[in-house]
């Protein structure tokens, strides 16, 4: 009996290795994706001044614990995917009523102002970040987006543009839980 099972061993080893390769090479896995450690953590300590000449206030930790679900988006005028996601974020904020806050990452104030004048400004608050706030938030680049619950905890973190696929697949179901 045992001897007969031994003949199955190579086949079992093959199945195990093939399964691993299938998972490793599958299109659903992105090996360059950077994992996030921010989920369920409270919003980090930060306090950013407003971008001059924009007419919207700056952003600090205290603004994110107001008992309301909010979205925080890191963006820059020099960032091409930010331009691509801009209209989807604008539409999201309009349709759901979720306040959208921006963090303007490593940008010149006049460039940011020109960019928002061209594309429209969906942000209720914008903080100017010379670089350190991004590290505090575990951000690796722009654009990155967070959803904060009413208690000021991070519930969603996405690296890359907020395309409709991401909004429909990840954000909307979470929003239904957080804001029934």
């Amino acid at each position, binding site marked *: 009996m045992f001897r007969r099972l031994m003949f199955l061993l190579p086949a079992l080893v093959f199945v195990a290795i093939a399964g691993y390769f299938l998972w490793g090479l599958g299109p659903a896995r992105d090996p360059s994706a*950077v994992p996030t*450690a921010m989920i369920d953590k409270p919003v*980090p300590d930060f306090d950013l001044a407003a971008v001059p000449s924009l007419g919207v206030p700056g952003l600090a930790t205290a603004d994110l614990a107001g008992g309301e679900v909010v979205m925080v988006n890191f963006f820059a005028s020099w960032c091409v995917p930010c331009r691509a996601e801009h209209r989807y974020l604008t539409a999201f904020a309009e349709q759901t009523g979720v306040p959208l806050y921006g963090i303007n990452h490593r940008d010149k104030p006049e460039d940011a102002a020109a960019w928002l004048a061209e594309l429209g400004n969906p942000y209720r608050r914008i903080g100017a970040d010379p670089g350190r706030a*991004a*590290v505090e*938030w575990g951000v*690796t*680049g722009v654009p990155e987006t967070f959803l904060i619950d009413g208690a000021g905890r991070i519930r969603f973190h996405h690296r890359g543009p907020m395309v409709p696929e991401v909004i429909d697949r990840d954000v909307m179901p979470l929003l239904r839980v957080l804001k029934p």
Partner: protein
Amino acid sequence: MKALLLAAALLLAGALPGFAVEPDEMLDDPVLEQRARALSAEIRCVVCQNESIDSSNAEIARELRLLVRERLAAGDSDRQVFDYLVARYGDFVLLRPPMKPTTYLLWFGPFLMLLFGVVAVFVYFRRQRGGAAMPPALSAEEEERLARMLAEGATEERGPKKA
């Protein structure tokens, strides 16, 4: 001998890839700066593939280098600096994976494979030395039959020679 080793080490150090640390980032205290360099070599530039912040020119790497130096200057231990970064970027930010239950297989897997191989080789050679397994001993009845056959054969063999 010591001098020779030192010379060799210095030569080899010169052969390492260039570092991205810029003069304006460096700390005035050479001891702290040395610690910062050592730590930086262990921290992954999160947007590069397998490059440390010490050798990367990415903006985020520069930001992290500055941060490491700030934390050290503020009196943080090496452990605290790592913890600070891991809290924000996860274990991914460490170039050397930490030892913990989820990484045991990663750390001990090679030794496990070695053990498996050693056992396999051991079993293989034991079987070879033992030769084919011995058949069961003959019963009394078979022994008797064998003795009879040998005796018959012996007489037959001797027979023709005598004739």
